[in-house]
């Protein structure tokens, strides 16, 4: 990913928008992984 600061898009912009979608998705994946671990217990 090109994370360098540009005239229109800053690193903060990119962090915010990726965090906006990435954090809920990561939460859901972790919840599902914890559920899936029961298969191996």
């Amino acid at each position, binding site marked *: 990913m*090109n994370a360098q600061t540009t005239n229109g898009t800053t690193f903060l912009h990119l962090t915010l928008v990726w965090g906006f979608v990435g954090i809920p998705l990561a939460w859901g994946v972790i919840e599902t992984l914890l559920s899936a671990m029961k298969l191996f217990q």
Partner: protein
Amino acid sequence: MSAESQFGGVFSRERIVAGPGFNRWMVPPAALCVHLCIGQAYAFSVFNLPMTRLLGITKSTPDDWKLTDLGWIFSIAIVFLGLSAAVCGRWVEEGGPRRAMLTSGLCWSGGFLIAALGVSLHNLWVIYFGYGVVGGIGLGLGYISPVSTLIKWFPDRPGMATGMAIMGFGGAAFIASPLSVWLMRQFSSPTHVGVAETFVVLGVVYFCFMMVGAAIVRLPAPGWQPAGYVAPAQSKKLITTNNVFVYEALKTPQFWLIWWVLCLNVTAGIGVLGQASAMSQEMFPGRITVVTAAGFVGLMSLFNMGGRFFWASVSDYIGRKNTYFVFFALGFIMYATVPYAGAAGSVGLFVLCFCIILSMYGGGFATVPAYLRDMFGTRYVGAIHGMLLTAWSAAGIFGPVLVNYIRQYNLDNGIPKAQAYNITMYLMAALLVVGFLCNLFVKAVHQRHHMRQDEDADVLATVE
């Protein structure tokens, strides 16, 4: 004035052309904002049991809805996903992604609000109309809205770009499922199940989330190319530099071959996805319980999501046609191995086979937009993709019917439960052979189907 202006200033296509400093990595999150919401459809089943006791609260009464009646809500939504994507594909393509995302958000959240009304009135037809029809239209528009935009921003890696968005659709259930359960718990009381309030909250939250996507999405300026990327001057063997008009694509054998490629790949996956829990428990009685089966389904869903990004990204390096060859060949081996895993009592091999199968099921969805772009060009790829999604609707019927009916036929003929799925697995493997052949016959689109330079210019003048 272009046609898209009818929807007003900030939502028009010309208002979202990116300036020189815009970073293209802002666009995948915009697409994910939409797909992470509409993918909730995969988690709708969490509402099924609570909706069977809306009147009885703790248990179903004779006037409560039956599970079989509630199953139609999801089915209607998927049918309208396919229909709206097919019918509105050109409208989406020509109006730009922001207008489509806005409309999708209005339909999707509106569907939830209407469904909440249906729950309050205890009228199932209102829910069929709300979530099924209105929400289903939101699903279709939202699913195809960012596809061509991403392909235009990432001409160097179109598979990876669309794979990222479509991964969001596969991963949305991971968020929606626990969130819905938590919300229902907050709103429930001794006299109330809390489904209607949960629908209202989800509708509002999803609308806000989708509007963030609509706000940040941008189109590249005409002629924009990523730094260091040189567009090929001439078509490669299976990657065209020309464009095919949306309805002209229907006249090509390539469209229908890819339609069958998608349909067969999805049929094989969707059939086992819906029955995975029951199948695992019946093939390994006593070793896989209800709780561990739920973990198995979760694991498969993770591979379904991860496969969307992984395989679509791989297709950028090995080509779309080769990627589907891998799906069909490896899928054949996996399906043929499942009965052996059952006979050998190997849970690990069984789980491994299905995780790989589900990764390729998701990969099939995620790779197909780039396959269409290679065949038909970028101009109408979103609209053509919309029409291709009817293959999904068809597979949604074929897959579960094949698995369920063959299992029942075997049980009726005295075959033990542990072996009742063997014939189905071999049949799925056979379907993949047919898919392999369809993929084999895909060649470059004949030049008589290509848009002429002056037609291209006319469309550009209208659209851009």
